């Protein structure tokens, strides 16, 4: 197995893994919109009307990113967008931590206020950072197996990068 093959295999795993993350988190949020509203509101960042829109849109943004990654369409762009969304999530959790709020991130459903001793900010940020690593990898090396991009021969960009000798 060449180095290129290993890199493509890792990328494929990351793509499908990140797809699963988005699909599961999006589904859990979409299926309980009231709880999602409470979770977004608990961050205490956005004004009321905006909370409503963000809480309504976010689950479906996540589902869309998950579906695109699953089929491998526009992997690089989707990975970049995933990274941006994850950075926003990390920033949101970090500001809650810094301000001393006591909330659950609601990353995979749930969310809202929790007792002061029940916060899990370091774990939540670490987990999102892990997902961010996967997104960054795919943004740099979007070529993967089982992707629509590969069939179109364009989307993954630099289709030859794995094959050019060094």
């Amino acid at each position, binding site marked *: 197995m060449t180095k290129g093959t290993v890199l493509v295999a890792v990328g494929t795993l990351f793509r499908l893994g990140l797809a699963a993350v988005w699909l599961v988190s999006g589904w859990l949020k979409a299926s309980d919109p009231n709880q999602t*509203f*409470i979770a977004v509101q608990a961050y205490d960042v956005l004004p009321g009307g905006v909370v409503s829109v963000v809480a309504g849109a976010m689950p479906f943004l996540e*589902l869309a990113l998950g579906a695109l990654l699953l089929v491998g369409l526009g992997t690089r762009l989707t990975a970049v967008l995933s990274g941006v969304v994850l950075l926003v999530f990390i920033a949101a959790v970090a500001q809650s931590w810094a301000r001393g709020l006591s909330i659950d991130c609601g990353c995979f459903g749930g969310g809202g206020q929790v*007792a002061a001793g029940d916060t899990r900010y370091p774990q939540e940020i670490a987990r999102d950072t892990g997902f961010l690593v996967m997104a960054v990898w795919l943004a740099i090396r979007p070529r993967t197996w089982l992707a629509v991009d590969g069939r179109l021969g364009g989307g993954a960009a630099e289709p030859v990068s794995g094959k050019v000798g060094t």
Partner: protein
Amino acid sequence: MGGAERSARKRRQGERVGGKPNPVTAARKSTGSRKQALIGVAVVAVIAIAVVVGVIYTNSRKDATSDGQIAAQSISLDVPARRDGAAVLVGRDSAKVTIDVYEDFLCPACGAFEKTYAGAVEQKLDAGEIKVRYHMINLLNERSDPAGYSTDSANAALLAADEGKFLAFHKSLFASQPQEGARGWSKDQLIALGKLLGITAPSFADGVNAGKYDKDIDAAYATAKSDESLWQQVGSQKGFATPTVAVNNKVIETADPNWLTNATTG
């Protein structure tokens, strides 16, 4: 060879052959970038459609209370109910035991409490064994979408007390309790409930619209929240929560099904 160097060489190869543009690779490159652009458009379209459809769908699920009205519940209990600041004292003067109930009309646990114990409480009120002081708490005021239902409903219930309709108003709101995180009942719908229950005074509608008792409700909540004698175990620490039930100023545990009997015999 480094990646930057390699792509620089590729670019040179692609653009020029012997100083002239290479027609073959130039064509291939433009097809590639057109594909890229199309894929980009497809990605953005998928996301945009998902989000727009999702928001519309979510709002339709969350706005269940936007149509229709709060069903009026009748109540046969006939005991005095007097507003006292942001609370309403219900029951006969002769009753020896006073139970303080702190409730938010949006709080699901309060709804469950009412569902389970309202009948027994009404019996004890009717028998003259207890008085109940209902405190209108707006703890969850930010938890309706749009925010404000806790305060609006508390204010309307206090105004209903002024009109002698507190018990039926209170019962009706808990019987048609909106979900936390969803749309509550609007001021107009609260006013309509008052009319259904026979409130004719225009001061009721004016008071609901103006938020007549909002400040009293805020102040009473702040007082209750900072009163450590009312705190309960919330998660891993102690704090104020709804519902809180206190018998003769001592918080009791309503998970015990005999709490009411114990309150009147102990």
